[in-house]
């Protein structure tokens, strides 16, 4: 799996937001919802506020081989839809790119 990925953000506020994903994005959510599978092929990576090896997002990420960064405090407030970001998984850092 890649150490660094870049992409545009989609912030998930409720399950309906999964249906709006039409192109490849980095998903930012508190945790995930069953409807994530609808959009899974367009999800390049996942950032969650919750941090637990057995949370839904962690399980989904392992099942679908998606890179995930968990435990990013207030990620759903820090990032906005369409922000361009880079995630460095080895350093556990997320940066906005201008």
């Amino acid at each position, binding site marked *: 799996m890649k150490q660094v990925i870049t992409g545009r953000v989609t912030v998930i506020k409720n*399950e309906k937001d999964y249906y709006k994903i039409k192109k490849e994005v980095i998903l930012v959510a508190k945790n995930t*919802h*069953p*409807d994530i599978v609808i959009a899974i092929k367009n999800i390049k990576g996942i950032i969650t506020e919750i941090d*637990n*090896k*057995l*949370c*839904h997002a*962690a*399980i989904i990420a*392992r*099942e679908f*081989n998606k890179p995930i960064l968990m435990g990013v405090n207030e990620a759903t407030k820090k990032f906005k839809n369409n922000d361009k970001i880079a995630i460095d998984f080895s350093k556990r850092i997320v940066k906005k790119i201008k």
Partner: protein
Amino acid sequence: MKDLLKYTYLLNINQIEKKIEALWQRYQEILSNPKSSWEDLNEARAILYFLGYLYPEKIALESLEYRVKLIKPKIDINEFLLAIDGKNIKVLNKYKKNKKFNKLKEFYLIVKNIKNRVKNNTYLDEGRFNKIYSKIKPKDYS
């Protein structure tokens, strides 16, 4: 819930599965009964919290983290979970005949089954629970 914890200590897979299903059935029974009281709804709330969070994310995870360390040849918890969820044939074949690995795998799959259970399009029927709970909640409840 006490029994489920007891059988988790014992790692009695059959009983763990039975106790989880019994809690789920009780939860469904409360949600499906139009005569369920405020007290019943709070029992359902306790089950939802226990099955959806406390048991899988705390109790079962701690149990797995502790026990996976005892598997030989060594495998860490992240590799263990990734091998099972990602269906990593190479790792799964390596531990194919390892009793400890297979027992913990079975335990994890039971935990995952309840954690990821979807009913009425929400995890653990939470949408239905929230709707009933708000409807029956006393106005002076704080």
